[in-house]
């Protein structure tokens, strides 16, 4: 059989440890490919969060810093301020960036920090066993909203990219998905653009990727993709939410 693609040089070869059907692995692969294609693996320092995504430092071949839950962007800001010529990206779950780390998300964007953040939104806390996240949809069952997310009690889900897009320091914000081959390609394009924004020193770039969590959603991998399409994609604003003129001209 013809070899269609080999492992990206951005990946270390450590096998992904995610559950079957989890799309974390696809997203990481896309980032690795982008790093390779832009030839910045050796210039890049990744920052990992706490959560299922927190193991990413093992899978990449670039340097990595891992800190506390929610602090990845603040840590990334510190790295970038110390090494302005290097490429810094954070890889964070929705709980990490839109819950415990919200203040850093808002202010990283407001300050126009020249880093790239990838948010992986699976609408709940994966690692700790499927609790409610700020992104959990209305009516959605999690272990801490066993009767479904009642807005009278738990309030409404946050669409973080929309908030970030409203801030002047954020120059590129996209919300994408990896549920179909076509969308995977689109996601890769968005991630690539987000890194090129940083290379050009234009400002803060955020790519939010909708992702599955079959384990905690209690669905099969196939059902998960369907659920994502039917429930998450209609709720979250999708596509390029913001691209300044400079970004469009890249």
């Amino acid at each position, binding site marked *: 059989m013809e070899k269609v693609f080999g492992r990206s040089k951005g990946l*270390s070869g450590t096998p992904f440890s995610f559950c079957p059907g989890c799309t974390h692995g696809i997203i990481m692969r896309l980032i690795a490919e982008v790093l390779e294609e832009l030839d910045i*693996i*050796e*210039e*890049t*320092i990744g*920052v*990992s969060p706490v959560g299922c995504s*927190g193991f990413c*430092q*093992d899978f*990449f*071949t*670039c*340097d*990595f*810093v*891992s*800190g*506390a839950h929610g*602090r990845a962007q*603040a*840590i*990334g*800001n*510190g*790295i*970038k*301020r*110390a*090494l302005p010529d*290097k490429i810094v990206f954070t890889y964070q779950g929705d709980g990490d960036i839109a819950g415990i780390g919200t*203040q*850093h998300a*808002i*202010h990283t964007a407001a300050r126009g920090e020249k880093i790239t953040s990838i948010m992986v939104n699976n609408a709940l806390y994966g690692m700790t066993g499927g609790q409610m996240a700020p992104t959990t949809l209305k009516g959605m069952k999690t272990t801490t909203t066993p009767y479904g997310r009642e807005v009278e009690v738990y309030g409404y889900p946050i669409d973080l990219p929309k908030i970030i897009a409203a801030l002047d320091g954020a120059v590129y914000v996209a919300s994408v998905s990896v549920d179909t081959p076509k969308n995977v390609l689109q996601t890769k394009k968005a991630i690539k653009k987000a890194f090129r924004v940083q290379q050009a020193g234009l400002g803060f770039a955020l790519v939010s990727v909708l992702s599955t969590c079959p384990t905690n959603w209690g669905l099969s991998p196939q059902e998960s993709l369907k659920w994502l399409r039917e429930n998450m994609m209609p709720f979250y604003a999708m596509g390029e939410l913001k691209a300044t003129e400079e970004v469009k001209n890249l």
Partner: protein
Amino acid sequence: MVKKVLMKGNEIIAQAAIEAGCKLFFGYPITPSTEIIEYLAKHLPKAGGTVLQAEDEIGAISMCYGAAATGARVMTASSSPGISLKQEGLSYCAAAELPVVVVNVNRTGPGLGGLGPMQSDYFQSTKGGGHGDYRLLVLAPSKAQELYDLTMEAFDLADKYRNPVLLLTDGFLGQMMEPVELKPKPASPEFDRSWIVNGAKGRKKRIIASYALSNEVGEAINLHWEAKYKELKEKEQRWEEFYAGDADYLIVSYGTTARIAKSVVLNARRKGIKLGLIRPITLWPFPEKAFLPYKEKIKGAVTVELNTGQMIEDVKLALECKVPVHLYRRLGGMLPTEDEILAFVEKTFCPGLEEV
């Protein structure tokens, strides 16, 4: 000799940081520490550095974490409530073994407290503060020149031991102006830089992290930290003795109150009371060695503290409870006067003398 200049304690710390080669400062304003970020915002950029006011203290210490991971010299400063918010980051810095210098200009507490000086954060500083079994190296200056010298040295100590260093001062020392000699920093030794992250160019990738998901690995790392803390205890205990040699009684005090205590010692000696002082300069490691020659010799000790009795526990341990140890304290931002401390010493150790 370098000409002396008159500066506020907080500004002295900031200037010392610049002289020590601090390149990044991340902070969040809080009285009575704010002059540090203000001074640095004005002067550090001229020295090729960066100052950033973070979204909060958690952001600031996390930025320090990131910057320190690149091997850059980095500092943050705050006062008590802000230091509470930094505890998470400090624990992570200790675990990832990142050399960060942190300044706590201790104000009153608990809660929001007030702006006066207190030594209420002694436990938090010396016994951990954040989660996990870690230690910070804690330095407690008590006058202008020492603020300058110890701040500079804090950066070297942090690099040498790859450990966060806490400089503990208080609202009084921070606001006080005294002459200081802004000496150039003595050359630092070469520090191991084989762990920093700066892009995996021509080398294997590196990871800075603080997790240990297997218990075996967890124990091995904790043993490594334990060995480091033992080395610190062995090599870095520091203190000053003042008329301690022939003393019958010792005052133990650090920072602002140690200054007052020195005057008390002189006043007591004039009255014929053989009083001496041990002033811890490192609060962790606590200078247990200082007490070795005295624990069989003296008749008693008094700690003078701005809290309800925190350092006294370490003093009792150091003296192995061989002599009575008493506490004289003022609280809530008040400072003791020389007279009231001496009166306490007399009442405690020399009853009858007052009536003479």
